[in-house]
């Protein structure tokens, strides 16, 4: 049986990044993971925007924020990666996405405030180019029309306009999506816009409403995998810059990323075993032996080293029963509050965030998970992404960035 150089467990941002980085370095890679990872992403690549959480302090310069964070929180996973590594990681990652039709953009060394489906502004570092015109429109408070659709739940242009009282020239219109009725789902709308004729129909409806506007914003439905082409076409048809507003996950941001990796990773020689969760993990000095999936269809995989990027609870990297939190694959020790009473705070929106979100794996400098005795669990087992302890990606706005950076570091620290 073939022994791979590295086994990547997980298919979220961290897992995909780890597989990509390892493959780019000429390593033979096998990857397992379930849907529910990358598929639920918002598409934003946050780096770091909030610190300290309790003060809800928002930083414009993520690297300044990183410096402060490294000073205040010595256990935070970001303390394991340098700014250079972060930059290189993000570059390599977004280059790959670019090659597969997903262009990303941001302000060098600065966070950008992006419009969310709720109308709130979210600080992030890199964002899909299809959103970029929206940033300009927002920053210049330009005359802008935001369109939404009958039957598309969870995105109200009117809400955005109400919440963005600071943007008086923001106008809204609710229209019927051509060729579809009743309840609409972003993915289906996006697929249907693969057909240029459908785009023309859409533009015909929007054009008369957009006469005043300098920019036109749509919910994120402009194409599935050929987004930039669809966007360009809509701009031609409407004669003005067009942008997308992300809808609530599961939005099409996830499937877009998934498609890019499903296409790109096999091309790089990565063997993927999607929907096969690791059911047994054995290891020796020599390396690892995994059983992925169960029953007659399970597969045996061996690898010299492994990167654990299996995410948190929704990603199935961590499991919680009524009493404890467990790590799903190796049952590694998980840093966590004494008992369940300590997991969550009494207020959902408590600015300090919930303790349970800081639970996770302790690692050494090479991101190797530690066993109870404080030594690395295995010399060639590394961890990356949300499963790491002492971080709250949701509140600190560091999800994708942390995942990609730690994946980069984990791959860089692989030794053979």
């Amino acid at each position, binding site marked *: 049986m073939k022994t791979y150089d590295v086994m990547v467990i997980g298919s979220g941002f961290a897992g995909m990044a780890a597989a990509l980085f390892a493959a780019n370095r000429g390593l033979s890679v096998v990857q397992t993971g379930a849907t529910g990872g990358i598929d639920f992403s918002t598409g934003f690549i946050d780096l770091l925007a909030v610190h300290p959480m309790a003060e809800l302090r928002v930083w414009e310069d993520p690297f300044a924020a990183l410096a402060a964070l490294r000073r205040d929180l010595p256990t935070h996973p970001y303390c394991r990666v340098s700014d250079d590594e972060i930059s290189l990681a993000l570059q390599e990652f977004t280059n790959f996405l670019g090659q597969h039709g997903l262009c990303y953009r941001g302000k060098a060394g600065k966070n950008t405030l992006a419009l969310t489906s709720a109308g709130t502004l979210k600080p992030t570092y890199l964002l899909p180019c299809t959103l970029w015109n929206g940033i300009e429109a927002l920053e210049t408070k330009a005359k802008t029309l935001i369109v939404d659709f009958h039957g598309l739940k969870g995105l109200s242009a009117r809400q955005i306009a109400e*919440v963005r009282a600071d943007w008086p020239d923001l106008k809204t219109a609710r229209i019927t999506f051509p060729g579809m009725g009743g309840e609409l789902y972003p993915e289906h709308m996006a697929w249907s816009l693969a057909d240029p004729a459908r785009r023309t129909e859409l533009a015909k409806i929007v054009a008369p409403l957009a006469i005043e506007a300098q920019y036109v914003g749509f919910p994120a439905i402009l194409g599935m995998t050929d987004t930039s082409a669809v966007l360009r076409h809509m701009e031609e048809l409407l004669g003005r810059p067009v942008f997308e507003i992300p809808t609530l996950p599961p939005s099409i941001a996830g499937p877009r990323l998934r498609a890019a990796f499903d296409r790109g990773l096999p091309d790089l020689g990565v063997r993927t075993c999607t929907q096969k969760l690791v059911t047994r993990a054995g290891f020796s000095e020599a390396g690892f032996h995994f059983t992925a999936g169960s029953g007659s269809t399970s597969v045996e995989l061996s690898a010299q080293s492994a990167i654990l990027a299996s995410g948190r609870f929704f990603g199935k990297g961590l499991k919680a029963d009524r009493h404890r939190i467990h790590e799903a694959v190796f049952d590694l020790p998980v840093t966590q509050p004494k008992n369940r009473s300590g997991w969550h705070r009494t207020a959902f929106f408590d600015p300090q965030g919930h303790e349970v979100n800081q639970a996770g794996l302790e690692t050494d400098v090479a991101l190797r998970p530690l066993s109870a005795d404080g030594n690395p669990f295995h010399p060639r087992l590394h961890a990356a992404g949300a499963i790491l302890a002492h971080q709250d990606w949701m509140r600190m706005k560091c999800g994708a960035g942390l995942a990609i950076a730690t994946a980069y570091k984990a791959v860089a620290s692989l030794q053979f």
Partner: protein
Amino acid sequence: MSTVTTRVLIIGAGVTGAGLLRDLALRGVQALLIEQRDVNSGASGGNHGLLHSGARYVASDREAAVECREEGEILRRVAPQCIEDTGGLFVAVRGDDERYVADFPSLCAASGIPCRGLDPGTARIVEPALSENLVAAFAVQDGAVDPFMLSLDNISQGLSLGCSMRRNLAAVSMEVTGRRITRVRCRDITTGEEVLIEAELVINASGAWAGLIAALAGAHINILFSMGSLIITQDRIATQVINRLRPPSDADILVPGGTVSILGTTSIRVPSPDGCRPSVAETDRIIDDARLMLPILERTRYIRAYAGVRPLVSLGPAGDDRAVSRGFSLIDHAADGVENFLTITGGKLTTYRLMAEKAADLACAKLGVSAPCRTHTETLPPSTLGKWTEPGRGPRSWVESRTEDDIVLCECEMVSRGVIDSIIDEAGAMRGRSMIKAVGMRSRVGKGPCQGGFCGPRVTCHLYDRKMVSGMQGLAELKTFTERRWRGFSPILWGVPLMQADLQEALYCGAMDLEFGPPPSTLDEESECLPAKEQP
């Protein structure tokens, strides 16, 4: 500042106040019902929704047992729409008190409560979820009642007979001159407007808050607060009510509520009726205990927990001798020097009608009204107000008779936009601090597995589209709603619910940054103890 005049003022729109409004209305007495928050936001909304057969009390409180039996029969007759006549089982497992088991049938007989013995095997065929360690089982006539529908139907008949009601109107002070309450000063908690109410007679039906209200008139009631927590399972684990066959204790009862089951309860002394919430520790205690009777409870998925506060009127100097029954307390405050002031509190959901009847009798005696009570004979007309609170009703009517392009906004419980619109239109101005919360209280929105995670933002969008909210208000109300759900959600977060919460925070904070921006309304925080009504 406006002034309202009414013959009788009822404070507290729990099920007792609602029943009282109807009782008086049927006797031709005009009354006004005020409620500081919303219907059933007290213990009336924070209980099992169990229509007692009485069997639970056969050993501890025979009088209460008989009351339950009689009232149960009456309610089945006059308010069938609010009752699911599930029947019930009393079951004992290995290790339970065998003497109690042995005495049970004769005790039931003594209180005239029908009770049929089953062999454990049969019981487990009827209810497969029951434990293999079953040693005894008896069938009784328990049922499930929808307290929210019950209150709303009572109120709506009261209104139809010329009485009136105001929500979000809190009594803040009372002017007492010459042994009479002349005026009650109230504040609208939504608008802050002051309202003066002049009434011939004031009836305090504010349940756990009765002591605080009585104090406004200088009267004193010695009330102890006992908090009880309950948990809701995602599935209807049993078709019937399942009671633990032992002296009344914690985690004894599992009541089916449409498509879910409700497990409880506990009893903890708390200093005040406000600010209480179910805790992780209590939730675990309930499960650890009840799983002996129903092992599935260890594995099954839970939706949320909630708590209610029972008012226990202690045998203090104040008017115990006048108490009609140990089940509940009817107090004439003449003894405290206030002639036109009554308090009715304590009791059980099952006996709410009797409490209303007794209070109304006394009130009528004081008012010199001779009309007799009719609530035990007159059937309670079903109203549209309460119908969307019944689990499974939304989806059924949506599938069977939906209008074109009426889309579903709450996926878990399949509450459609049309239903939400009808609720918004009825709720009108009396929205409280959060329109979406008012909607949640009158429908299944936010009651399903997602606990508002997905339906919250969707309904909020709709409220903006309908111009019910503007500016940041919608977001603030969404956050208020979320915090309200969180109270019940946070104690059951392990396994899948934890994933659900993980996903919700990723949406709210990871994607929408809702931890920024307007804070949730805190007024709810300090004053509301109970989650929106949960039972069928």
